[in-house]
């Protein structure tokens, strides 16, 4: 979940009042936010935002706006939005899109900003917002990348083109040299990080003004001149490119509203496409595309568990920034410009709940009668555990991921049948265990100083490949157990198995087992109703050597699912 850093004094300028930290913690819950930390040097607040569907809250201005409205502030209106029925005049501020971008990075939104100089706090916020929006909401710039430029240096129309990666060169921000786009991918840190998003195409996205002066190479890096915005600049051009038009348009609206709340004037820009888009071939942004959200009153009441008056509902929604009206049997609300999280009437229900305040709802015990019960496997597993404890065993609990070294090589086995992780964190967590024995041997290997004898067991899950299953794998409940002692031998483990099967009331036979983990002639298969359900025997000294174990070891393993079925 994104974390932002907020200058306290500025923040209270947007919330409309100051808060003690304790009160702040309380009011932040309405935005699903938590005060993580206060920076001891700067006094800045570090706030974590938990709602991934509310990117508007991920800035000082946006979060401040929500809290201000929640505490009674007026819902703002923004005059710079075009919509389906209303296209604002963008004057000469036009962006033209190259047809070749359709299959590369097809969409761009843009607007201009003027009327107030950018101060340090706003610049810091802008950079933070860009980071959070593009990383968390824009899937690490894949679906949203943002650029901010000095509009004084721009001659319109801005050209959004598909450019030759090798022939196209410019000086990127942060470097002294002029490099080609492909070179930037190789040599510039942002190129290394974000270049792969477009590197496979035969042309890369490129933004210039009408004269050919370079704005940036989206989604990677701005140019060193037009793209180097500083404190004190007044006239800005802001654009976002990406692959999903609604989220792009929302991101542009969010940034525009933030700047407007901070006192800047937002000017529309017209984007001209040579191909169809969900919003048409010419889109003037910022653009309000959201449809009204609605919910049946009966649905709201049912989901909240009590009947609310129309007045209550409208007031609650207003606190969340939504102008609402009751229309017959339903409530209809205007979605704020900076939000697009109403997918279902359930989203309206939650806003009403938070708007009215969770503390106003009295908890009620569920009344429906249901019978609780454990699963059959759990009941059986407990019986087996109790028998093992009675036999003198200490129950262990182990992780289910391990290394090839432990699960395969040290056990003298081949890798067939093991479930392997394609993206392991390290080689220590690369395989899913198909047996409990390696973990037990691992325990024995590090427990040489514990008083002997050692009797340990686990009842837990294992999994391995099985082509007869839809997932190509099967998961089983196993009992695995081990005894280590100077006197441990086949007779011991034979007795243990005999007692176990007696007390779960299962008749069984044994058959000679050839298994590289056990000493030949001292290992057996357990057969119940002719079906193999387990193995036991003396562990081969080769395996003991592999594990660095110096004590004779007997061990066994039983498939409890098969044993249960009988």
């Amino acid at each position, binding site marked *: 979940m994104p974390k932002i850093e907020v200058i306290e004094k500025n923040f209270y300028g947007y919330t409309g009042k100051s808060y003690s930290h304790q009160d702040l913690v309380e009011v932040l819950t309405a935005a699903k936010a938590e005060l993580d930390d206060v920076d001891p040097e700067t006094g800045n607040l570090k706030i974590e935002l938990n709602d991934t569907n509310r990117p508007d809250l991920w800035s000082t201005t946006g979060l401040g706006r929500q809290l201000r409205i929640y505490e009674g502030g007026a819902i703002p209106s923004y005059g710079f939005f075009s919509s389906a029925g209303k296209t604002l005049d963008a004057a000469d501020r036009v962006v033209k899109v190259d047809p070749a971008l359709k299959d590369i990075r097809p969409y761009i939104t843009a607007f201009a900003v003027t009327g107030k100089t950018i101060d340090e706090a706003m610049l810091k916020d802008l950079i933070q917002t860009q980071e959070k929006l593009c990383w968390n909401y824009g899937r690490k710039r894949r679906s949203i990348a943002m650029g901010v430029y000095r509009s004084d240096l721009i001659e319109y129309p801005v050209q959004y083109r598909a450019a030759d990666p090798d022939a196209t060169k410019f000086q990127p921000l942060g470097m002294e040299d002029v490099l080609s786009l492909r070179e930037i991918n190789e040599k510039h840190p942002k190129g290394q990080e974000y270049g792969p998003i477009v590197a496979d195409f035969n042309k890369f996205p490129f933004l210039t003004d009408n004269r050919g002066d370079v704005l940036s190479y989206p989604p990677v890096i701005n140019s060193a001149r037009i793209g180097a915005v500083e404190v004190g600049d007044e006239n800005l051009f802001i654009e976002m490119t990406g692959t999903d038009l609604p989220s792009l348009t929302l991101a542009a609206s969010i940034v525009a509203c933030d700047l407007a709340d901070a006192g800047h004037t937002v000017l529309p820009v017209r984007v001209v496409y040579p191909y169809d888009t969900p919003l048409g071939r010419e889109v003037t942004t910022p653009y309000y595309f959201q449809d009204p959200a609605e919910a049946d009153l009966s649905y709201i009441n049912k989901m909240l568990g009590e009947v609310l008056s129309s007045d209550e509902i409208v007031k609650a929604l207003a606190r969340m920034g939504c102008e609402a009206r009751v229309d017959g049997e339903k409530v209809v609300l205007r979605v704020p410009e900076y939000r697009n999280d109403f997918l279902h009437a359930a989203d309206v229900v939650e806003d009403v709940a938070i708007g009215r305040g969770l503390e106003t709802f009295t908890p009620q015990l*569920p009344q429906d009668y249901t019978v609780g019960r454990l699963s059959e496997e759990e009941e059986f597993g407990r019986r087996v555990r109790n028998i093992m*404890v009675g036999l003198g065993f200490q129950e262990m609990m182990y992780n289910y*991921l391990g290394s090839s070294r432990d699960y395969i090589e040290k056990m003298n086995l081949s890798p067939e049948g093991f479930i392997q992780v394609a993206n392991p964190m390290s080689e220590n967590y690369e395989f899913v265990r198909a047996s409990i024995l390696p973990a037990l041997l691992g325990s024995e290997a590090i427990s040489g100083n514990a008083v002997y004898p050692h009797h340990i067991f686990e009842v837990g899950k294992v999994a391995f490949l099985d082509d007869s299953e839809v997932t190509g794998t099967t998961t089983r409940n196993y009992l695995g157990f081990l005894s280590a002692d100077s006197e441990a031998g086949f007779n011991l483990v034979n007795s243990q198995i005999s007692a176990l099967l007696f007390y779960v009331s299962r008749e069984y036979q044994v058959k000679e087992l050839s298994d590289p983990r056990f000493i030949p002639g001292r290992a057996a298969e357990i057969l119940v109703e002719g079906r193999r359900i387990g193995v036991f025997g003396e562990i081969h000294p080769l395996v003991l050597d592999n594990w660095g174990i110096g004590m004779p070891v007997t061990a066994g393993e039983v498939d409890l699912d098969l044993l249960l079925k009988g």
Partner: protein
Amino acid sequence: MDIDVKSLHPLEIKMLRGVSSGEELTPAGMMERLSFKLGQCNQAFSWLSAKGLITETSRTVRTVFEITDFGRNQEQEGTAEERIIGFLKEKGAAKMPEIAAALGLENKDVGSAFGQMSKEGLLEMDGDKNVSVKSADPSDRMKTVRALLARGVKGEILEESALSDAEQAAMGGISKKRGAAASCFKTAEREDVVYTLTPAGAEVKKFLEAQGVTGEEIGALTPEMISSGAWKGKALREYNINAPASRVLLGRRNPYAEFLQWGKDKLCSLGFEEFDGPLVETEFWNGDALFMPQFHSARDIHDVYYVKNPSHAKEIEQPWLDNVAAAHENGGDTGSRGWGYQFDRDFTRRLILRSQGTVLSAKQLPQAKVPGKYFGIARCFRYDQVDATHGADFYQTEGIMLGEDVNLKTLLGLLKMFAEEVAGAEEVRYVPGYFPFTEPSIEVHIKHPVLGWFELGGSGIFRPEVTRSMGVDVPVLAWGLGIDRMALMHLGLNDLRDLFSQDIESVRLRRRN
């Protein structure tokens, strides 16, 4: 008195009662008077001395000689000197190397034996180095050696102080302190210690006499004593019950497993039915069916473990696949407008290690009872750096509640019930929460009498995009509790990795607070 009489061993008691103040106590004396073995004497002396009940009055060191195997052999086969004389008497004359070879002796041993015996007038050598017998009568020294060997073979330990000058001289040549394997006798030092009762010892003795404690009291009661009645008329010794108990190794449940078991029993008692499933799942059930859009940041390769081979499930069951795809694309029949993107039917079949317990809830929906309450404590896997607060795999406790009475208020009520029954909370605080598959969502924070405030878990009403796609028409509540964190607290641990420790001894000793 300072000494706990119950801590006295019968040997100590008998010795205290069998001696008088001022008397000189020696092992020999005690062995005779009390019929103790030497070892018992020394043990009693050692214990009583450590307790300050007797004290040393003198300590003398004496030297003794013990026969070795070599010495026994010499006595039987003849000493080197005797054999040389015997050989020469038969052969006549011979050179020393010849003698050495014939008798299996070292040249130097023959040489030194010759030196000794020629001084004593028994052997002589001519100009050609031939050695012959001059007189066959063994010297006095040789006779003395013979006598010493005879005594040693009989088992006698020879005291140096008891040997005559001549015997001591002879012994000097055939004994060694260290490396005595090639000597007839081994020299050893013995210490003789003499003790006497201390005033404290005298006091204890008086007390024992007054109490009538003789040291003849029965210790361990044996089956024979019981069946023969031999215990009758005798006292049974009283033990020191404060002596530390010796450790017993036992079979035992793992306390973490027991805690989870308690959790399961608790949830059953609240009307929940248990469910579980396989470790390998599909993106469909683990994420898509929960209405998490396929482009959600939590779906990235960096949160979930993928299976290498096979990489995809063979198919996804219908009509669930079509329903969910429609829900994602345009809302389908769920009353939602959906996410508005092209649902990827290949990605949905990708095989992963399940990353959240909610996958079980998703799978249960198509066959869930109404009303119904379900729970599972499921082992899940997440791609995360393993440290004190994150494991490669870990337990999640999750479940669902279905019914017409599921709404925000019963959601709060259910969380309150969990807080009180499962976590023992004094106070409860609700906070709006966020989960991708529920709306509204609530987090519950609790105040525990000992541990203070912490987040216990969360709950929410499943989005209709989830439930209606699975054919469920009633509202469904999904909930999750942080049981692992509670386990750490109850076991007094700080590090999640300790819950899965492989160390046998530390698991043996771990117990609940």
